[in-house]
């Protein structure tokens, strides 16, 4: 069941990203020549580098992000590969790798939550339609537009919170199962929570990364 849901969810995500790329290309004259694709790939690769203009905090933020991305890759492969491809539950060296990278990832997530949450706060400019509705429904005093110094789009903000919020049940579900609190029934429930939140989490990370790359390409 979980395998089927996961496969459908991942296919839908990648299909959606593909369609998005085709329908809304990030550059005006998108070419599909091999050289152009290679150039774009190199461009994406250079995004991994630390820019010189970054402040020490900015550099730390990027480093934490990159480390989190690496951990995510390892965790996603070690967890989804056995389940989706090998059709067996995670065990053996897969499990050991998974458990080794998990705490590092948890630390990175906590760091990212602290460092990125401020920038990912929603404001009026993110949803003007909502502001418009609220102005009609309530006698709201218009205090003027807040100057927006954000570089992040609405999609990135939403996916950020879609990463941070499921991270909590994702980590807690597996850690709590290690304590002598829950019997077999709850253990199985916790495992299911871990699986499904991991799926939501993984899709959110994929979307967030896609939107991030897309935004960088536009710059």
């Amino acid at each position: 069941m979980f395998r089927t849901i996961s496969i459908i969810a991942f296919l839908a995500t990648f299909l959606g990203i593909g369609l998005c790329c085709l329908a809304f290309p990030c550059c005006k004259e998108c070419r599909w020549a091999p050289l152009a694709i290679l150039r774009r790939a190199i461009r994406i690769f250079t995004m991994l580098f630390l820019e010189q203009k970054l402040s020490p905090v900015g550099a730390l933020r990027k480093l934490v992000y990159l480390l989190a991305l690496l951990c995510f890759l390892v965790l996603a492969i070690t967890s989804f590969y056995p389940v989706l491809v090998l059709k067996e539950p995670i065990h053996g060296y897969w499990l050991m790798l998974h458990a080794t990278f998990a705490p590092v990832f948890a630390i990175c997530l906590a760091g990212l939550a602290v460092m990125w949450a401020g920038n990912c706060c929603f404001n009026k400019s993110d949803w003007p339609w909502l502001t418009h509705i609220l102005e009609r429904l309530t006698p709201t005093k218009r205090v003027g537009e807040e100057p927006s110094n954000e570089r992040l789009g609405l999609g990135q903000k939403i996916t950020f919170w879609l990463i941070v919020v499921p991270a909590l049940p994702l980590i807690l579900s597996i850690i709590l199962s290690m304590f002598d609190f829950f019997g077999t029934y709850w253990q199985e429930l916790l495992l299911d929570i871990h699986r499904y939140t991991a799926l939501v989490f993984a899709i959110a990370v994929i979307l967030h990364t896609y939107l991030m790359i897309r935004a960088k390409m536009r710059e």
Partner: protein
Amino acid sequence: MKKGLIVTVILIWLAFVLPAPTVCSANKAAGADTDEKLLGDESDGSRAVPIHLIPMYPENEDGEKGFKIAGDDEILLPFSIRWTCEACHSYATISNGWHFNAVDSNVAPGRPGQPWILVDASTGTQIPLSYRPWPQTFKPEQVGLTPRQFTKLFGRHTPGGGAGELESQDPDEFMREFISGKLEINCLACHNAAPEQNQTEYAIQIARENFRWAAAASCEFASASGSAIDMPDTYDPFMPMPLDDPKKVPPGVSYREDAFDKDNWVFFDITRKVANERCYFCHSNLDVGSNSPERWAVDEDVHLTAGLRCVDCHRNDINHNITRGYEGEEFISANLLAATSSCEGCHTTGRLGAPLLKHAHAGIPPVHFDKLSCTACHSGRWPGEKTILTKTSRAHSLGIAGINKSPEALPHILYPVFAKQSNGKITPYKMFWPAFWGTVKEGKVTPINLEVVKKTIGKILTKEKLPRTGDWRILTAEHIIEGLNSLQKKIEGKAVYISAGKLYKIDNAGKLIAAEHDAAKPYLWPIAHDVRPAAQSLGIRECEDCHSTDAPFFFGAVAVDSPIAAERDLSYEMTEFQNIDSFYTWAFAFSFVFRPWLKVIALGCCGIIGGVILLYALRALACIVKVLAGKS
């Protein structure tokens, strides 16, 4: 033309179809005959115990039902269980039961169980025997044992029937079989509620070849004397004549005077609810060795302590197809309770007041239930650094007077061994290393007839001391070479010696070489009892009960047992029996050192993430409140 064809087809069809109901009816009638239930085959619903005040019948010289036994009969014959009980209970149906059907090749063998072990310390022999086709066991006839000889050796710890009732194919045994009779199913071995039921006496009678007298001798109102083994082939137990040798006593039976009522009927104290002690006669275990507590210091199975009896779980109907209680038994057993008589059966349904699994196993990840049997954590002895020796009733004749109580007495059964069973789950086993002189033909090893081995090897080892403890007689490479050379002259195929997991043979240069062979692999059978309480199960203290770098569950030593002195100090790691990577298991266990750190880090991170979410959720709430208040 067309009409004719249609008519022909219809006629052919009718010819095939019309007789069918007749055949079916005939089958039904035959079925009705065989399925006819006797008085005691079907319960009328009363839970009261039926009183078995009944006449007793012997078997006559033709093997048929004899005349009713009376206390004042001139020639007293032992009552036949078959002819006495069959008046009300279908003997043929009962004889298909698990305890009696080993010799029936049509019966599914099920999960391998404890075999009979043919032991001879003097020749370095311990061979797993079974009439069931369990892998790695040999049929008794492969080692030269006729059913009659098998019964004489092992009938002591059986409730009769099975091999004891097989017709002998050996002309030399025809007369002996007439004298001793067959070893019928002994219902009293289990169902006699009288405390005087004496299975030791039963064993003695079998050793004397008094098969016909064994059941009567074991019950409370009869006693047997004499010995069929001493009787000449011409002896007729139904018309006994005085013997030439006054020292030899013919087999006979006497009944307690007050056993008979005025109609010469006898009261049998029969119970359906068999007492645990009856089961224990054949199913007892004793751990031996310096670290093993004495019997009185060992706790019973937790189920018995809780008030259950063996037969509460191991149940059967009239066909005596008793549940063995292992996982998956329901797929081969016709017993309706097979599915619910396993550990899981009771502990998922709450039968018999069993604590439910879903509320138990706090902190144990569910993957354990895919990889371990229930017994892995709950049954048998808590594993130590090395396997220990254990004794069983059937292997060591426990419960019979005069047995060798020495801890070293053969066969050497090792335990607990945690090995992977056919369903992929690790489960605790008992095991022993087969040791025997055999012959290889087309790569297949079969034991050489033990009598041939005794004669040949016995001569070679006369100078070697046979320990009084019942332990192995020490063998050296020279002994084996000499033994193999001697045996080679008497057998076809290549003579080999199996021991310590190796096959020893002499190469072309005359040197002794050892090689691995399937026939040399240890014979293992899973155990289920004694079940320890949950509070004493593996993993109850901490994960490190099993997941530590020196945990006996994975890294315990499985001793190698052999008459060959050089092999005795060897051992194998438990992981080798589990088909798992030893390094991975070690590394995984080592990672548990960091588990407390993992918990602290993960909970700390959760605290931070939760704090951030809460902070911004409150800010969002404040914003909503402001908007709804119309302030901004």
